[in-house]
Structure formats: C-alpha cells, structure tokens
C-alpha cells in the first residue's frame, strides 16, 4: 500500500482521535485505572536487590537503531536509571547503535542529575559495543560475567540473541526482567528470564512506571482503539457468516471489501 485509501484514512483518523482525546482528557486531571502488570512491578524489586548486594545492574535497549520500540526502551531506561541514581547503584548500558548510544547516555546522565547526584554518573558505563548482532551478544555475555551483574533488564527489539543474553544472565544469577515487541523472542524470555512483559505490555510500561497522566491517557486511548478493531472484526465475522449463508445479501453487506487488499 503506497498511499492511504478512504478505509485507512478513516480508521487511522478514528484511532488517532481516540488516543489524543484520552491523552488530553487525562491531562485535565482525571483519575485513571491501570491493571497490575507483574513483570513491571518486579523492576523495583530488582533494583533494590542490586543495591542491597552492592553489585551493578545492566540494561540492554535492544538491537535496533532508533525506532519506536527503542524509544520505548529508552523511556523505560529513564525510570530504571533514576532508581539506580537514587540507590547509588551502578547501571551499565551496552548499546548496539551509535545514535541509541548517545540518547542512552543523555537519558542516564539526566536521570542522575535529576536525582541530584550527577557526580555518580560514569560515562564509561554507557557503551557502544557493536552494531554486529553477535559481536554485541558476545560483549554483553562478557560484561554479564565479569561485572557480576545483580539485575539484568532487557527491553527493546531483540532477535536471535535474546536467549544468549537471558540464559547468560540466568547463569550469573541475575534477576531478569525482559520485554520485547518481537513476538518470536517472547518464548525465550519466558523460559530464561524471571519476569517477562508480554506483547503490548511493553508499550504500557512507561505509563505504568511513571504514572504520568499523558501516558496513562494514551494507554486508555489505546484500549479504545483496540476495542474498535475488535468491533470491526466481530462485525466482519458476523457479516461474512451471513454472506456465506445468504449470498444474496451481498448487495447490502458489501462493506467487507473496503478492507480488501489492492
């Protein structure tokens, strides 16, 4: 699809409207409910554990360059780096992309400054390792082992290296929390990490952690957007069934073809 047709324009228009409407609604100070996401609640526990043990934490923002999942990973990093600064715990951030590396450094430096301990920030802990997938994995494996990492966070786009990182983290005894929008990698995180954030819980994470009205509102808007998709598909199933039984209704119920490709 090179350009939007009417179906796309209207559908995306509705979704965008719902999300923005809920954002501005929440910004006016409305109270919003968000269900418990166990994996995300475990983050604070993992930070506390590292602080108690006096050992560093590791945060992998995924393998991609600058992209939407990476941005979300960096938003989560901000929260974890603040906690690290609060407890004076070291946080190591190995990155696989130069631009992501610079933003990660910014985010972490900011978090330390915001907690009033800029002097605890060590720029050497935010590293660019490699943009080669497995060179990156080999480097993270080395760091996990040598630095005796107590807590390991993996958020962002992960591919075949997911199990290498998570299994090594398990072997060195780190508490691990992971989340990725890459569906194929979720099972590997489930088997090897202690807590795994599934599917779009990943995009709910920053709202859940920060309780920022904008993000909570957006999350509520996303729920409405998904409800719209569910409604369209249910209506589609009913229509398709009616058409299968009574093909003569085709003249009246021809809206299914609005969604047909091409």
């Amino acid at each position, binding site marked *: 699809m*090179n*350009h*939007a047709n009417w179906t796309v*324009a209207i559908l995306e228009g509705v*979704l*965008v409207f719902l*999300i*923005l409407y809920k*954002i501005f609604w929440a910004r006016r100070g409305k109270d919003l409910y968000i269900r418990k996401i166990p994996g995300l609640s475990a983050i604070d526990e993992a930070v506390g554990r590292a602080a108690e043990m006096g050992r560093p934490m590791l945060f992998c923002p995924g393998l991609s360059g*600058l992209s*939407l999942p990476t*941005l*979300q990973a960096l*938003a989560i990093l*901000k929260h974890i780096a603040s906690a690290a600064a609060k407890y004076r715990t070291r946080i190591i951030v190995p990155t696989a992309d*130069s*631009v992501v*590396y*610079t*933003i990660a450094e*910014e*985010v972490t430096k*900011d978090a330390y400054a*915001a907690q009033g301990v800029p002097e605890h920030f060590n*720029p*050497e802990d935010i*590293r*660019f*390792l490699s*943009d*080669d*997938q*497995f*060179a990156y*994995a*080999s480097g993270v494996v080395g760091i996990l082992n040598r630095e005796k990492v107590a807590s390991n966070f993996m958020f962002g786009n992960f591919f*075949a*290296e997911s*199990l*290498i990182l998570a*299994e090594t983290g*398990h072997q060195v005894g780190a508490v691990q929390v992971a989340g990725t*929008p890459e*569906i194929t990698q979720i099972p590997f995180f*489930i*088997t090897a990490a202690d807590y795994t954030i599934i*599917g*779009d819980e990943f*995009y*709910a994470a*920053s709202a859940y952690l920060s309780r*920022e009205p*904008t*993000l909570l509102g*957006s*999350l509520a*808007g*996303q729920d409405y*957007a998904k409800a719209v*998709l569910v409604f369209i598909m249910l209506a589609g199933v009913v229509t398709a069934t009616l058409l299968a039984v009574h093909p003569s209704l085709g003249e009246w119920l021809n809206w299914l073809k609005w969604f047909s490709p091409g």
Partner: protein
Amino acid sequence: MFTGWLIRPGAPQWIWAVGVLCDFLIFGGAVFLLLQLVPVHYRKALVAIVTFLAGLIYSVEFFVPGDPKTGKNFLTGFIEQVADATNVVYAFALGLGVYSLFRFHGKNLARKRQGWHNNLAFFVAFFVMMLAGFWQDLTPSSAMSKNTFNMLFDGTVAALGAAMFSIVGFFIVSAAYRAFRIRSAEATLMLAAAFVVMLGQVPIGAYITNGLPAAGLGSLFRLENVSYWILNEPNMAAWRAIAFGIEVGALAMALRTWLSLERGSFFEREL
C-alpha cells in the same frame, strides 16, 4: 561554495575532500551562529517544530492520494531523497560509537588496567579489519587484497558470529530443561505445545506416527500434521492478536513523539 563552484567534476579526490571540509566549516559555522540567535526559552519549541515538520514529510506523502497512473504524489520523489539523506546523516553518527569504543579500550590500555592485552586486541582487530576492507576496495583487481580480506572476514567476523549464533542451540537445551516443568497450568500448556511441535518437525517424529494413514481422518493425528495445525491455527490467531496490540501501542508512541507530548520520557534537563 567550494564544491558548488570552484571544484569541477573530475578533480582529484583530495581536492574534493578539502572542498567538502571547507564547505562544512562555512555552512556548519553559519548554522551554528544562526542557532545562537534563538532565545533560550524558544529552544524547546524549535526542537518540537523540527520534530513535527519532519513527521509531516512521511505522513503527508502517505495520506495525499497518488497520481492514478504513476501512483506517486508531489512528495513521493522527495521522500526517496529524504530516505537517502537519513541514511547518510545516521551514518555520520557512527563516529560517536567508535569514539565510545576508543575511549573505553584506550583508557584501559593507557592505564595498563588488568587485562589490557584484550584492549590491545580490540585495536589490532579494528585497524586490521578496517584497512583490509579499504585495501580490497581500492585495488579491486588484486588477488592479494581480496584473499587477505576474505581470510580475515571469514576467519573472524563471519566465524565468530556463526559460533556465537550457534550457542543458541546449547542454550535452548538448558533453558528448555530448566523451564519446561509442569508447575502450573500455564507452564504445562507451554510445555505441551513445544513438545508436539518439536517432535512434529524432525524425521523421528514423523516416524513415530508413520503407522497412521497418510490421508483421511486418521492422518489428522500424524504428529507433523498436529504440529502444522497448532502453528497455523491457534498460534497464528494468537500471534495476530498480540500484533494488533503492539501495533496500536507503536502508533500511540509515534503520535506522542510526533507531537512532542512524550518529551519528559527521555530528557529531563531543561535546554
């Protein structure tokens, strides 16, 4: 300036290099000075405007209908240029990554910290591989440079990458052994699906149920068919449902980024 008027195509590469450098200093200096004119409290707004305008390029191109014949609209040609430019600008950031690597390994090496020979190995590998790359690029007809490059690439980057990748095979075994226990209903379901699909994919699995007929009702229970059904029906539906949620989440994220509603998520410090 230099590259536009003074230097003609066909001039030696080093003259071009000097020209590009001079132009960079001239234009870069001009942009830098212009930016100094922006009052401090407008900086945030400027960044937000740049973000919004950049976002308009792709979205307007998508929503404006294309010419029925060519399928292109007034922006389609431009976004191809934008894509190239983004790649180029992004590539310049590699210097920051290399700087990070040099800073880390250089410090360890200079202070002779424990294990400094590893940091030395980093530098040796870096320069040898890079130079071999440029050497074979500059001498396309030389068997010597090509062999050297292939030897180094196959012997290091390719081989170590393949070795690291294949470690996943080992880790699958230890992860499966440890995690697939019938502790709860959820874990048991996961185990059951993995078990059937794994068996259905290897020759020995097909052998187990080879006694069942190849067609008809009985064939449905052949392991390879059960495994195929799991992957194609319930798994595909679950996959699609997860993906819808992720896609909506990404759309919302894009929206917040585009309209600079997300600012506070990355950067705290005031500009």
